[in-house]
């Protein structure tokens, strides 16, 4: 396998323009002759399907929800970055590029990241034209806020529902193409296999989630925008249905999987309340602007009412350990320190599996200083949400928070054209690994999904089609197609007929998530990862022996859907641990206990300044590693320090 990034050379600010100028095109009247498949209707998939439809291609778009409007992008709250410099505070494409490279701890490709920053401004124009109701100032111009510790105000937002509004913008553009007949939408339809013919991606096998019917769809190119794989941890801030099946099936067909161990943990989520918990809820990071994080200094105080613990017995650990940044240290530092104090037995809140995993986020001082009204004005919605979920009133008693998995930087390896290692197979949005390196900045995922979907893919797909010209037809009864269908049938059958059926898929998913969370989560060690690498295959075997799926394959069967997704998470979870073990450095969100300098992540540029791209070998325990070296011409690698 060869990893060719296909990035243009020359001055970085001209690369995308030059690339477009020298790429192949498909003439408007020829586009109807091409069939394209888009998996996913989130920001990336919805935007790509709509834009490709507008260009005149024949597009089929798939999602597993009952409507494309429900893709998980809808849940993003905070905002979307763009280098508009409307605030005149010194922002520029260069600065957004620089922040993204540095935030990613020098583990992303400069050319891609520049293009992302460059396209950010077009996204805002497009969304506004669609009628996305961004926040405005009294003069009628767009409002901005600063987000996630950025030194400039470049984040655009629509109340706390930015993802929802951007997604509805894309969904409406998609709806217009559905009405026009250029896009056919397949909701409640899940892709279960990729069809590869003559070395190129040529179609998919799907299951109709209502009737259970398997179908094949043949196309000239397949575009995966199926979102992130955070649910490998079982508990995460992702939607319940978010899964890795589309990208994992593609990986098994030959698409390299890059940096699977780069997963982001968000520090301000509502802690787990019990073993029955099904998902975790994120609360905006902005809470740390006014809340103070603490735990009791003494173990015997952990089950006391926080109000009864005097100031001298409170351990404001972030303020003490990081005097310069205090409660505003970056996400990963805040998360890891919460883990440490809880490991030390100082965690608060209910015991789950014998441990208290929570720290206080206290607004008492802010309320005293600013008054309750100001706090209500700033965080009213979040406080309400917190109370709805926990039954506690954060104006009166401190919130409890704990980190949770939030985003996956890893994903299918793609070149500058967002093409995977399988010709004709493209990946966009959270499903690819491209632009965020080892850590993503807040408000940059929405930007990337839309940049990929609206502006990159519609163009690079044209270049691909213009290069391969017309592919030969592929009949439904061709052996390559039949083999893919047979593989799906066999898998469904195996899931329905485990030899010793005992437990629902959730039972295994929770156990797998537990292993990955404890051993491949916020802080990783060699021993822990080695243990996980031993434990996962055993649990996987038990899964295939004992998974219990009632009902049949020929009907709406949500247990069967979940079982298939859990099966793929097992293999991906294994790869994550292998990748984390292999990367003997700490960078971004990947923190290896063995590799630190004064308590800070210690990167090893000499040995690890590369993308790890894994090739499927047929054995989930023995993947093959390929490396794409990274070069930094415009931003010289530096070490961060928050002390």
């Amino acid at each position: 396998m060869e990893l060719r990034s296909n990035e243009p050379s020359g001055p970085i600010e001209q690369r995308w323009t030059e690339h477009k100028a020298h790429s192949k095109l498909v003439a408007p009247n020829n586009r109807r002759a091409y069939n394209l498949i888009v998996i996913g209707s989130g920001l990336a998939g919805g935007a790509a399907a709509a834009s490709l439809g507008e260009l005149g291609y024949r597009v089929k778009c798939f999602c597993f929800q009952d409507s494309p409007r429900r893709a998980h992008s809808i849940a993003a709250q905070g905002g979307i970055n763009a280098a508009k410099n409307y605030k005149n505070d010194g922002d520029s494409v260069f600065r957004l590029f620089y922040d993204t490279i540095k935030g990613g701890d020098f583990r992303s490709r400069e050319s891609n990241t520049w293009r992302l920053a460059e396209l950010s401004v077009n996204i805002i124009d497009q969304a506004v034209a669609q009628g996305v109701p961004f926040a405005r100032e009294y003069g009628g111009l767009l409002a901005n806020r600063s987000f996630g510790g950025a030194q400039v105000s470049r984040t655009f937002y629509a109340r706390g529902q930015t993802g929802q509004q951007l997604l509805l913008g894309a969904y409406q553009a998609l709806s217009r193409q559905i009405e026009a007949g250029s896009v056919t939408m397949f909701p409640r339809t899940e892709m279960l296999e990729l069809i590869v013919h003559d070395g190129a991606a040529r179609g998919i096998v799907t299951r109709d989630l209502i009737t259970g019917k398997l179908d094949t769809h043949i196309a000239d190119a397949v575009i995966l925008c199926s979102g992130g794989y955070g649910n490998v941890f079982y508990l995460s801030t992702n939607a319940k249905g978010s899964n890795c099946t589309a990208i994992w099936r593609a990986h098994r067909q030959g698409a390299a999987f890059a940096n699977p161990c780069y997963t982001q943990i968000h520090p301000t989520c509502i802690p787990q309340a019990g073993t029955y918990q099904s998902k975790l809820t994120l609360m905006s990071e902005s809470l740390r602007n006014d809340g103070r994080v603490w735990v009791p200094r003494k173990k015997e105080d952990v089950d006391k009412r926080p109000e009864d613990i005097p100031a001298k017995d409170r351990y404001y650990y972030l303020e003490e350990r990081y005097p310069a940044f205090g409660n505003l240290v970056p996400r990963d530092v805040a998360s890891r320190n919460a883990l440490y104090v809880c490991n030390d037995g100082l965690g608060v809140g209910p015991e789950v599996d014998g441990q208290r995993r929570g720290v206080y986020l206290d607004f008492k001082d802010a309320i005293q200083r600013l008054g309750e009204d100001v706090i209500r004005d700033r965080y009213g919605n979040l406080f309400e949400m917190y109370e709805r979920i926990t039954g506690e009133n954060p104006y009166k008693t401190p919130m409890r928070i704990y980190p949770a998995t939030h985003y996956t930087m890893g994903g299918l390896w793609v070149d500058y054209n967002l093409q995977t290692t399988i010709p004709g197979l493209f990946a966009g949005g959270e499903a690819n690994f491209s632009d965020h390196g080892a850590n993503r900045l807040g408000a940059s995922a929405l930007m990337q999904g839309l940049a990929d979907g609206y502006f990159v893919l519609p163009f690079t797909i044209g270049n691909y089609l213009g290069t391969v010209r017309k592919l030969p037809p592929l009949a439904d009864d061709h052996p390559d197609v039949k083999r893919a269908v047979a593989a799906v049938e066999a898998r469904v059958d195996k899931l329905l007929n485990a030899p010793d059926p005992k437990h629902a898929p959730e039972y295994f998913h929770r156990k797998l998530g537990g292993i990955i969370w404890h051993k491949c989560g916020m802080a990783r060690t060699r021993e822990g990862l080695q243990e996980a690498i031993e434990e996962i295959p055993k649990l996987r075997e038990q899964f295939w022996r004992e998974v219990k799926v009632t009902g049949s394959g020929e009907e709406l069967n949500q247990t069967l859907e979940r079982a298939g997704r859990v099966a793929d998470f097992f293999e991906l979870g294994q790869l994550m641990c292998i990748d984390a073990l292999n990367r003997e450095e700490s960078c971004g969100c990947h923190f290896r206990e063995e590799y630190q300098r004064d308590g800070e992540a210690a990167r090893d540029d000499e040995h690890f300044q590369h993308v790890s791209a894994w090739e499927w070998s047929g054995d989930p325990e023995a993947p093959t590693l390929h490396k794409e070296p990274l070069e930094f011409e415009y931003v010289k690698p530096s070490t961060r320090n928050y002390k």
Partner: protein
Amino acid sequence: MSDQLLNLTLHVWRQDGPTDNGHFETYQAKDITTHMSFLEMLDVINEDLIEDGKTPIAFDHDCREGICGACGMVINGRPHGPQRLTTTCQLHMRQFSDGDELWIEPWRASGFPIVRDLCVDRSAFDRIIQAGGYVSVNTGAAREANEIPVGKLDADLAMDAAACIGCGACVAACPNASAVLFTSAKIGQLAMLPHGQPERQDRVRKMVAQMDAEGFGSCTNHEECEAACPKGISVNWIGKMNRELIAAMATAKDEVEVRGK
């Protein structure tokens, strides 16, 4: 955190498919903690059903954060249950008391055929949007975002309407199973913004026609929809839609003649 355990009797609508008659089945939910969400309570019931070799209760859900609009069931006669401004997934068991008896049903409306158990087919909502709930602007054709100012009040009002999550509770709550709150919210959002003006009249005509064609009932001002809406969308949008429609109908004839269709 006071932890209390509840024992509840659930009567859940079970229906194998669109043509099946359906019936209530009774389940005992035991030792349910008050910190559970309503859907987590159903998860527990379902896991037990699976382990007993039975078919679990089908229900739609995804984000479990009250924003995707996937979840929704009628609980004791109220869409999304007893708590105001709260989707089913955000409803927590502390809203209930030990010994409660709950009747759990799908949305019932001719525009939303039942798929299975508590899952319904809401694709009619997608078709109403496809009929005209958008601004026709191709990717790449947009101009600089700040070229057209939008007054803060208009932008805020547009956002109020745009907050709709498309769950369908409004239809389920309406005695006529009308979809006007949903339809009017999208029409209203785009009518508030300068970008929505060129297609304003066409949009309202087409979307209302599609809404009618989907078999939803008409609005007779019960305002149950607003009360059930988890996002608090106001019935004022319905009045606005009706005014938009009258204006659009008044000009429709001339326009059609000009366009020769």
